């Protein structure tokens, strides 16, 4: 294996330069899109009623397994619901090995982990008109009363499959496949022109 000193990390968006469009008169607010690179991601398969697994996940992430269409976040770590027996664990870079070893040695029964860190890229979207902007390319009901903070869905943005998480009233996390990240940045910055937008690479 080549050490990271020889081959430095390269994020999914390392080839995409900064994009900026000025805030026009009458804009509801500027949108800021940033890459949140180098998070470790672990796919977890597990029955939702597995008590020991819930306890261990809570120890590792401060939250037990969230229910349908929910994400639980605490600091650098988050657990995102993907399906009735499937979750995505997000953690700071380099944490995957320890987390997976913890889960695999804990004798939790029918549980499986797969590291998927490099399969995905992560964007954060901030700004007052974020909901209107995201709704242009997404059929999910993003009304603030429905898509509340902590809601997480797998859906389609434009032509790309994504995981969309509301982290705040006007803040979202968009997780997409690495190879679709330049497309997602182009799509979302274009949809943001009418509000004014800044895309900042990591």
């Amino acid at each position, binding site marked *: 294996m080549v050490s990271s000193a020889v081959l430095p990390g390269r994020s999914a968006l390392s080839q995409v330069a900064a994009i900026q469009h000025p805030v026009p008169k009458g804009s509801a607010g500027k949108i800021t899109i940033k890459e949140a690179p180098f998070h470790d991601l672990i796919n977890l398969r597990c029955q939702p009623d597995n008590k020991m697994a819930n306890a261990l996940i809570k120890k590792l992430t401060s939250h037990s397994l969230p229910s*349908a*269409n929910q994400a639980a976040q605490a600091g650098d770590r988050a657990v995102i619901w*993907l*399906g*009735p027996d*499937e979750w995505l664990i997000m953690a700071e870079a380099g944490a995957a090995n320890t987390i997976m070893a913890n889960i695999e040695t804990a004798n939790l029964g029918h549980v499986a982990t797969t590291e998927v860190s490099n399969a995905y890229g992560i964007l954060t979207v901030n700004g007052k008109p974020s909901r209107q902007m995201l709704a242009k390319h997404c*059929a*999910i009901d993003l009304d603030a009363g429905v898509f509340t903070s902590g809601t997480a*869905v*797998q*859906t*389609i943005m434009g032509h790309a*499959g994504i995981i969309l998480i509301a982290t705040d009233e006007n803040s979202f996390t968009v997780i997409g496949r690495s190879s679709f990240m330049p497309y997602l940045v182009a799509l979302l910055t274009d949809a943001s022109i009418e509000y004014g937008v800044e895309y900042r690479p990591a």
Partner: protein
Amino acid sequence: MLLIDCPHCGARDETEFACGGEAHIARPLAENTISDAEFAEYLFWRDNPKGVFLERWCHTAGCRRWFNAARDTVTHEFIEIYAMGSLPKSKAAKDAYASAWRRQTASEKAAKPAQKTSGKGAKS
């Protein structure tokens, strides 16, 4: 555009789903004695009714889980959504199941264990 009620994620846009065609097609048992033409009923023949049809759907862009649905092919109404491996409960869907052409086929009869081996119980 249809709103389809994924049993796990809730109502989602039709574009997130893929239709997997006719549901409840049982594979003839390995020890079947049916003809090639009858085996083709299982392998190739698919029903295409006007009215209630029992289908398999997958929430491909969401949770990626399969489920069964009873859908009216005329109105596109989803009459019932039910789990894989189970049979429908609503009257319209039950009637559609019972009256389906496939129920009378030799291939489906060959998918059930013969009476004398009852108790081993492979289920369609």
